[in-house]
């Protein structure tokens, strides 16, 4: 079933949690809502489920206005981070619960419920555990029971709130891959929330990046990674280096010194220069002979596929980390000339500049242009 969220707004005690969010999700899609804590991703998920009511806006399941339906009537499968299993029920009873509480007319017979629960338990690879209680299962097993329980009600959409958040790294990775396979088999429209960008990128068909109650960008993982729509996305998805620069007459200056990148037609003013750690070129010569960004090597770390350098940049006390291919190994304390080969300039938006709080300052920039400079 496809899912449309239209102009949804949600306030908690007058603090806005979501500002006018709209999102379309196609039937059968696996979508990740990703963002830091407080970005509104869980609120959005709970709004879809009906566990929260929006202050404004509508949620459509197909053509139906789901906002009018109660949680019970929405028929969503919801999986909680901490499983929320019924601890006094066995695995079998947990999975069958949603069917046993149906009103008499729509309730399958006890035999059908039993069969359906058993087949779902098999699907989540827990055959043989039917009569165990949740306290007798590991975290990963509990989460699979929760998933089977959610799927038992033939949900229109499957909603997962940080489903792997409470699990250790290895189990997490296995479950992630397994969930992807399961999705490909069952084809449920699925939305899951995570704060782990790697998880979102690996698992989802489309990624929705959220920050401070707004959707920053929606797109396929590759597109999000390669063409971030904002400094926030650039910073949040994958690694990035960020340097505060000043634009003056089409020249980009770092600590007053021009660097060999051009921003022609850009109005004067401050900006953030952002690039990936590996999108750089270096020259092991003094900046007098090659006019890159002058940087001193502070530390050098080998990680198998190459070398990560920690650099001190310019007079402003900035630092950055860059990745170099295996064959280059500048010694510590040597001076390098560094310049990005692919970079983006983000300009601060005038509106946010008037409220410069430390936390907000980081994302106070909006994209002006995406530039790829050919060597």
């Amino acid at each position: 079933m496809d899912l449309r969220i239209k102009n949804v707004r949600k306030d908690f005690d007058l603090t806005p949690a979501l500002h006018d969010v709209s999102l379309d999700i196609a039937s059968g899609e696996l979508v990740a809502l990703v963002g830091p804590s407080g970005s509104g991703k869980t609120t959005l998920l709970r709004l879809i489920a009906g566990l929260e009511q929006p202050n404004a806006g509508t949620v459509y399941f197909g053509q139906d206005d789901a906002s009018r339906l109660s949680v019970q009537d929405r028929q969503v499968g919801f999986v909680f981070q901490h499983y929320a299993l019924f601890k006094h029920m066995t695995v079998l009873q947990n999975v069958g619960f949603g069917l046993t509480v149906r009103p008499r007319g729509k309730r399958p017979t006890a035999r059908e419920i039993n069969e359906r629960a058993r087949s779902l338990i098999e699907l989540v690879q827990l055959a043989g555990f039917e009569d165990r209680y949740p306290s007798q299962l590991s975290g990963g097993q509990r989460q699979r029971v929760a998933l089977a329980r959610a799927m038992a009600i033939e949900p229109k959409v499957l909603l997962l709130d940080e489903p792997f958040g409470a699990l250790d790294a290895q189990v997490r990775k296995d479950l992630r891959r397994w969930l992807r396979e399961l999705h490909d088999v069952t084809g449920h429209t699925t939305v899951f929330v995570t704060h782990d960008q790697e998880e979102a990128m690996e698992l989802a068909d489309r990624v929705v990046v959220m920050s401070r109650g707004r959707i920053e960008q929606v797109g396929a993982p590759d597109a999000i990674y390669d063409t971030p729509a904002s400094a926030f996305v650039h910073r949040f998805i994958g690694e990035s280096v960020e340097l505060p620069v000043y634009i003056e007459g089409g020249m980009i200056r770092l600590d007053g010194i021009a660097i060999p990148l051009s921003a022609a037609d850009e109005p004067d003013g401050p900006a953030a220069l952002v690039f990936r750690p590996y999108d750089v070129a270096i020259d092991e010569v003094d900046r007098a002979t090659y006019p890159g960004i002058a940087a001193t090597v502070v530390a050098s770390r080998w990680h198998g596929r190459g070398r990560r350098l920690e650099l001190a940049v310019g007079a402003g006390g900035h630092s950055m980390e860059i990745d170099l291919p295996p064959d280059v190994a500048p010694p510590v304390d040597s001076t390098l000339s560094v310049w990005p080969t692919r970079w983006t300039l983000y300009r601060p938006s005038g509106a946010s500049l008037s409220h410069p709080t430390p936390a907000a300052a980081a994302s106070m920039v909006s994209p002006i242009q995406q530039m790829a400079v050919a060597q």
Partner: protein
Amino acid sequence: MATTHAAPAGWWFRRPSIIPGFGLTFGFAVTYLALIVLIPLSGLVIRSADLGLAEFWRLASDPRTIAALRVSFGTAFVAAAINVVFGVVVAWVLVRYRFPGRRLVDALVDLPFALPTAVAGIALASLYAPNGWIGAPAAALGLKIAFTPLGIVIALVFVGLPFVVRTVQPVMEEIDREVEEAAATLGASRLATLARVLLPGLAPAILTGFALALARGVGEYGSVIFIAGNIPYVSEIAPLLVVIRLEEFNTAAATAIGAMMLAIAFALLFLINLLQAWSRRRYGHG
């Protein structure tokens, strides 16, 4: 009325533990329980053993004694059952909702603990007497409350309420909100969630509250004698009969009634403890 734990398997008296001090604390616990609980109660048993079996049986099977025991345990049982229902509701309101005066209501719950029982008894008696505020309208409807077993039940409901509320409240606070939300997303109505998800989890705590309220009700004296009317065979409670026999210098009969009460109370509490152990296992704690 200690909580029962699963006995260690095999012949181990205790399982090896990293926590030191078992000998010291166990010795202290046994000595203390002996001094405070066991010695006084065994005094009662020894005295009634002095009577001889035939004499004990004659005294214990006295119709007035049997009637008094029936009134005592019957009313205590009914009152504890009523307290379970309304105590759970009170605990629910205190745990789940934030309203002005919540702390005040919370404190009010403990009042029956603190009030001298005689004061409570007199207040209840005047309230429920045929000319009292509640007694009068009830009498007009043909319902006599004070000076009947119904009056005793009301007094016992009053003194027993805090036991249920205070045992259920902390467990209720521990209930995970997400469990209820999960039930809702699975299509369970509020009623179904309550009956199928919430109450089973609370069952052990509710049983404890019931046991405490029952025990208190059986032993209650002060608040009951004023409202009961104390009519032999009708509304005379066993503790009062003990006092009456003592005033008649009939210590033998008093001892026999005391021993009977002890035996029945112990059997009941033991049964409830077994039930609790079962429900703990059933509802998967641990």
